[in-house]
């Protein structure tokens, strides 16, 4: 219902899709813990961050976390079994190490010793079991329930916690980095979900839901070379102009989700640095493959040629992003099909395909709300404007932000949507493009594509796999039912007093929520 | 009398010209008037509405109302040139040396403050005395003004005090700084005749006691005759003539003045007595009121064809309530109203359209009785259209015909709005609207009391003419006995919701009277300058005896 919540919807959905997709496959193997920071951090200072997505209904219960504010707040207070490092690799956090059975259906995590909670209680494997169980079971109302459903049993074996899965999953350690799966202190096999206690680098000082949270450094933090600030204040600022103002007036040091309309102006302000990380986040317009007129590939192609991607990157992303080529694989990916012809704005081609489809003109409705992604309505308007030259009439329908994912997404035949992206093509394709999967938002079903997806998953030869993914990208581009006009960066801004590591994580905004641990005052 | 003119001159006005603005154009409303007033002298300014008498009175204070400006002449008050003096100096005079008594004390007292607070304001603000002195002084003056409970009355709010008392309190307030000059602007016009006597005598006495000069503005000759040393007659901003009171009354020079005097003599011929025909309207033993209070108590009277029954009484006597019962706006608790011998449904909403048509009403205030947004065509035409079903040409013809009946030129007036008419013309429209329904019976509720005498005269004559032409029965509600004298066939005198006396007019104006009728009759001012003095003496003797 309210604009201010769009931003939140984004992260919530992204993770979940990503997290479920993990069950399919992943290539990243356990690695030792290493520091992401190259420069020498200094200690001290109070970091003030203005963040979107805070709400008065926020809770300390990890089962309900969904928006950026609570995610960053959590990163201050708690740890997980595993952590995604700034370079995208997986490192252990509260798990010192882990190993899998040969079929990858049993996972044994060695729990770090000598870690204490803020309350002084020592971390035990029981706490881990209780923390994960909080999301499981019949009565679980956790957002993370779908991703822990694969766990059939959890056992303690000395310092280890052993997870038994329904089937083999090489990516299970990845799952354990999910931000819901915070490790909290337990008693009698249950955690107190709302105590606010944790093993993290900062201890709660005060918290008012939807307003602010203040934490101070945990003097007993177990991690070396992390959590440099004396204290951190998180402010929930929903209005993007207010966030900018707070940064300009020096009332906060870091803001997230910079308004792309004015990012250029903000970058020229003295003492302010823009930080943009480009990863896998991309914006899409899925079309319902099952329904006319989108069931005709010529119509889909006509629409793909009828929008100006360069302009969208420029005007919707403020230049912070890259054009998309109607498939979900980002240009940074090792499997990216660079030689694929780039779809560009070409009204003649669009007209041609329209004619092929036996039409002189096309009238469609495009549903959008800024809940889908910031600027979605404007993007739809630009689309509509450019498409007119090709005889395509796109009527932009602005839907309420409120309940957009409930009422519009996957319900209206043509709408705006977004993906946080996934580290591997298989993961991404499996989440949203494989026939019949829950988040196949376009209801696309391509035999050849589905076949390739299965074989690629089990193919170990890199060259062959590359060929397969290449072909899949091409199929997606030529026959897919999703228009992917752009890849969007996470755009943050901070005062030049704040120092950041050379490598900043791209999996989420604010250094994968971990700016609170990884950044410092220069 | 002569002694006063030997006193020093207080106020000299020469060639006074005042302009008024309407719709962004200025036009002269006072056209060169001269006034000379000696200390302690009372000048009566008399004229009809629009004569500029109030404007002149205010100009004597160096004051012009919003939308007016003094454009020429000199105003010299005791050596001070009020036109040239700065506003602060003029303000210093007002309330202190020149005071003002307004027509309606009820409207001119601030409803938010107690009387005594308002009394004390001028003396304290002008630094004449401090608050406690002023309060003591107020009690003294209230006593002299013969107000009841002089110690206590000042602590009441204006709405808690009756109109006659308020008018005296206002005179007391004007006297607070012992001014040299008081402007009385129609101070008794809004009062009942019996109350008027008390106020007039109190004013006259206090002015004499403090030897204050006064300008007494009124349209009522008989009143001014009691109050003024000399009289100036005004007509449309021009001076007609000025003379000392007795001379003026005895021997007016100008035609206009004579015509003013003559008004008083109109009386319609005496009608033959009624036979035993069925009365058009018959009020039978009606008791009515609001809530638990009975306003009317067992009222009976009949009105016959071609007859005018005047219902006379002071405010609160129930005469208007009687009209409301007849029209059906108020259902009686007991009794009934017969029309042509048949009982009317008590509530107008249950009456048939024809019953509604047969009884029409003309209101006191034509301003509020005519919808200001409708043109005369619609105002008059509507009843004809509704009751008689006239349309198109026939309707227009009827409207023109009605306008002719009320002596207004149809071509000129048919498309005017009420705001484009004079007071008398508006009242004529009210009459035409009643006639348009072709009724048998018309209630005239104080139809002339808001009008100047000459105009009222015209209306009365018109009503008279129409009555004989259409054989109408009139119920004429009034508090003015002069009107009764000129138009009534029969008189019903009411007091406190009861009929005190009723009968044919000639009998009513002949003794013996009911005491209340006697009081009413004797309270009507007469042109004799000694009338008030004599009357008060008479009453005092009666009380003593």
């Amino acid at each position, binding site marked *: 219902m*309210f604009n201010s919540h769009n931003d939140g919807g984004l992260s919530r959905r992204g993770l979940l899709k990503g997290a479920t997709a993990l069950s399919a496959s992943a290539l990243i193997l356990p690695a030792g813990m290493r520091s992401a920071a190259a420069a020498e951090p200094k200690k001290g200072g109070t970091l003030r961050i203005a963040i979107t997505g805070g709400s008065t209904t926020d809770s300390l219960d990890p089962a309900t976390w969904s928006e950026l504010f609570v995610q960053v707040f959590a990163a201050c207070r708690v740890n997980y079994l595993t952590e995604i490092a700034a370079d995208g690799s997986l490192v252990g956090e509260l798990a010192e190490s882990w190993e899998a059975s040969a079929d990858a259906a049993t996972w044994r995590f060695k729990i770090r010793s000598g870690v204490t909670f803020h309350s002084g209680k020592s971390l035990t494997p029981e706490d881990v079991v209780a923390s994960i169980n909080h999301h499981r079971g019949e009565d679980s109302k956790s957002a993370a329930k779908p991703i822990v459903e694969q766990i059939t049993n959890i056992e303690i074996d000395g310092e280890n916690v052993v997870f038994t899965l329904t089937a083999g999953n090489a990516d299970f350690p990845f799952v354990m980095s999910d931000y819901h799966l915070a490790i909290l202190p337990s008693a009698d096999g249950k955690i107190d979900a709302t105590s606010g206690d944790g093993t993290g680098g900062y201890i709660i000082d005060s918290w008012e839901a939807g307003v602010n949270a203040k934490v101070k450094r945990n003097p007993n933090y177990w991690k070396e070379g992390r959590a440099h600030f004396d204290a951190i204040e998180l402010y929930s600022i929903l209005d*993007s102009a207010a966030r900018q103002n707070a940064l300009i007036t020096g009332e906060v040091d870091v803001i997230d989700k910079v308004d792309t309309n*004015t990012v250029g102006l903000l970058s020229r302000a003295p003492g302010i640095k823009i930080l943009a990380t480009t990863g896998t986040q991309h914006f899409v317009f899925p079309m319902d493959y099952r329904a006319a007129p989108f069931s005709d590939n010529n119509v889909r192609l006509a629409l793909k040629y009828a929008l100006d991607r360069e302009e969208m990157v420029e005007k919707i992303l403020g230049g912070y992003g890259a054009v998309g080529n109607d498939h979900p694989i980002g240009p940074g990916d090792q499997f990216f099909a660079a030689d694929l012809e780039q779809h560009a704005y070409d009204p003649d081609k669009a007209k041609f395909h329209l004619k092929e489809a036996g039409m002189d003109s096309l009238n469609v409705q495009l549903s959008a709300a800024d809940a889908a992604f910031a600027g979605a309505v404007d993007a739809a308007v630009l689309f509509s404007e450019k498409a007119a030259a090709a005889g395509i009439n796109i009527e932009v329908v602005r839907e309420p932000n409120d309940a957009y994912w409930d009422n519009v997404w996957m319900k209206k035949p043509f709408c705006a949507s977004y993906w946080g992206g996934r580290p591997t093509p298989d993961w991404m394709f499996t989440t949203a493009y494989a026939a019949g999967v829950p988040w196949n938002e376009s209801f696309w079903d391509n035999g050849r594509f589905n076949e390739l997806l299965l074989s690629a998953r089990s193919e170990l030869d890199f060259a062959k796999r590359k060929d397969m993914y290449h072909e899949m990208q091409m199929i997606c581009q030529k026959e897919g039912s999703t228009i992917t006009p752009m890849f969007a960066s996470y755009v943050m801004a901070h005062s030049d007093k704040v120092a950041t590591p050379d490598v900043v994580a791209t999996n989420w905004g604010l250094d994968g929520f971990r700016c609170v641990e990884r950044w410092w005052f220069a | 009398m002569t002694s006063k003119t030997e006193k020093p001159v207080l106020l000299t006005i020469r060639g006074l010209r005042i302009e008024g603005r309407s719709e962004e154009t200025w036009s002269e409303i006072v056209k060169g008037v001269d006034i000379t007033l000696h200390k302690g002298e009372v000048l009566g300014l008399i004229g009809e509405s629009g004569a500029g008498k109030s404007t002149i009175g205010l100009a004597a204070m160096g004051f012009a109302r919003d939308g007016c400006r003094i454009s020429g002449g000199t105003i010299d008050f005791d050596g001070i040139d009020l036109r040239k003096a700065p506003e602060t100096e003029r303000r210093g005079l007002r309330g202190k040396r020149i005071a003002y008594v307004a027509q309606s004390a009820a409207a001119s007292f601030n409803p938010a403050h107690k009387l005594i607070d308002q009394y004390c304001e001028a003396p304290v603000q002008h630094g004449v005395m401090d608050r406690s002195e002023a309060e003591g002084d107020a009690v003294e003056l209230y006593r002299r003004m013969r107000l009841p409970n002089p110690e206590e009355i000042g602590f009441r709010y204006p709405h808690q005090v009756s109109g006659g008392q308020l008018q005296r309190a206002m005179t007391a307030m004007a006297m607070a700084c012992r001014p040299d000059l008081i402007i009385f602007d129609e101070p008794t016009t809004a009062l009942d005749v019996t109350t008027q006597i008390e106020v007039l005598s109190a004013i006259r006495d206090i002015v004499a006691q403090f030897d204050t000069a006064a300008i007494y503005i009124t349209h009522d000759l008989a009143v001014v005759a009691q109050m003024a040393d000399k009289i100036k007659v005004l007509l449309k901003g021009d001076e007609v003539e000025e003379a000392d009171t007795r001379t003026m009354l005895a021997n007016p020079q100008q035609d206009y003045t004579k015509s003013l005097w003559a008004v008083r003599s109109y009386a319609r011929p005496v009608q033959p007595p009624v036979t035993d025909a069925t009365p058009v309207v018959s009020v039978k033993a009606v008791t009515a009121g609001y809530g638990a209070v009975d306003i009317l108590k067992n009222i009976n009277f009949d009105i016959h064809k071609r007859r005018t029954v005047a219902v006379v009484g002071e405010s609160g006597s129930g005469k208007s309530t009687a009209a409301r019962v007849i029209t059906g706006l108020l259902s009686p608790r007991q009794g009934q109203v017969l029309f042509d011998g048949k009982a009317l449904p008590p509530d107008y909403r249950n009456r048939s359209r024809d019953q509604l048509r047969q009884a029409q009403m003309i209101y006191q205030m034509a301003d509020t009785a005519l919808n200001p947004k409708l043109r005369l065509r619609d105002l008059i035409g509507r009843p004809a259209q509704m009751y008689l079903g006239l349309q198109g040409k026939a309707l227009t013809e009827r409207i023109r015909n009605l306008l002719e009946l009320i002596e207004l030129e149809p071509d000129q007036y048919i498309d005017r709005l009420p705001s484009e008419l004079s007071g008398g013309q508006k009242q004529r429209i009210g009459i035409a609207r009643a006639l348009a329904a072709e009724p048998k019976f018309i209630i005239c509720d104080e139809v002339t009391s808001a009008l100047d005498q000459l105009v009222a005269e015209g209306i009365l004559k018109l009503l008279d003419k129409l009555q004989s032409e259409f054989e109408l029965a009139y119920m004429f509600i009034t508090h003015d006995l002069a009107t009764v004298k000129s138009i009534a066939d029969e008189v019903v005198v009411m007091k406190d919701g009861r009929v005190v006396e009723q009968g044919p007019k000639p009998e009513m104006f002949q003794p013996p009277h009911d005491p209340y009728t006697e009081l009413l009759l004797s309270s009507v001012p007469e042109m004799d300058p000694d009338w008030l003095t004599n009357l008060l003496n008479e009453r005092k003797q009666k009380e003593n005896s």
Partner: protein
Amino acid sequence: MSILINLFWVAVAVAVAMGAGWLFRAAAIALTKGATARMLRTAPVTAGFGMLVILIYVVVAIFAPLIAPFQEREVVGAQFMVWDSVHKLGTDNLGRDMLTRLIYAARNTVGIAFATTALAFVAGSVLGLLAATVGGWLDQVLSRIVDILMAIPALVFALLLLTIFGTSVLKMVLVIATIDATRVFRLARSVAQDIVVMDYIEAAKLRGEGLWRLITREILPNAMAPLVAEFGLRFCFVFLMISALSFLGLGVQPPTADWGSMVRENASLITFGDITPLLPAGAIALLTVAVNFVVDWMLHRASGLKE
């Protein structure tokens, strides 16, 4: 010093505006005759200025396609281009011509605001007059309902209703009109209560006039002055309501240009001292001031004060 210069320009602008107002009034008087000219002669310069502005807005709104240099939704350049000879007021965030958008917005905004206000007034005043005329239980029921609706904060109420029913222009008009109608009802009722006690209403009732005619012919014409004055203010508040709704994500459907949403879209630029967002806001402000200048004059006439 710069303040002085700014003040100087403000003074010049005011002088020019008043001069234009005076000229317009003079021209209007010259071109009309009879009662209209007499009425116009009572208009102060501010009212002349107000009428001139309203006239300009109406002309712009009606002839928007002829006046505007580009199409309403046409993307003509990069985003936020500076003012130049082609794009007199630069471009907006999507690279649409700002001047064009402003001109079309006049049509849309004024149209929507007018429709909303008109609807609110028809509903509010008919019910208000009815309540005052009939009185009794009808009055009680209607007044209580209005009291209840007014006790729910307008913005929250609008948000609830729009979320439930969706955000098409029609629904927005209906929702805002409903909320505004409660305010109009109160005014109409209180004005009518003063009128129904007048003798001419009594005369009409005694004549046997029906309720409808009583309301439309006898009461309504006399209640017009305060209602028109309220219309002026309400009309302007509709822009603000739309703007506030658009702040909360529920405004006019894109790509329709409307001032309220345009203020919202460009508002964050003010943080950087860019005056672009002042343009639509200024358009609203100018119209508000103009309408109320005229309304003030009409109220003044109705009040009968002669100064």
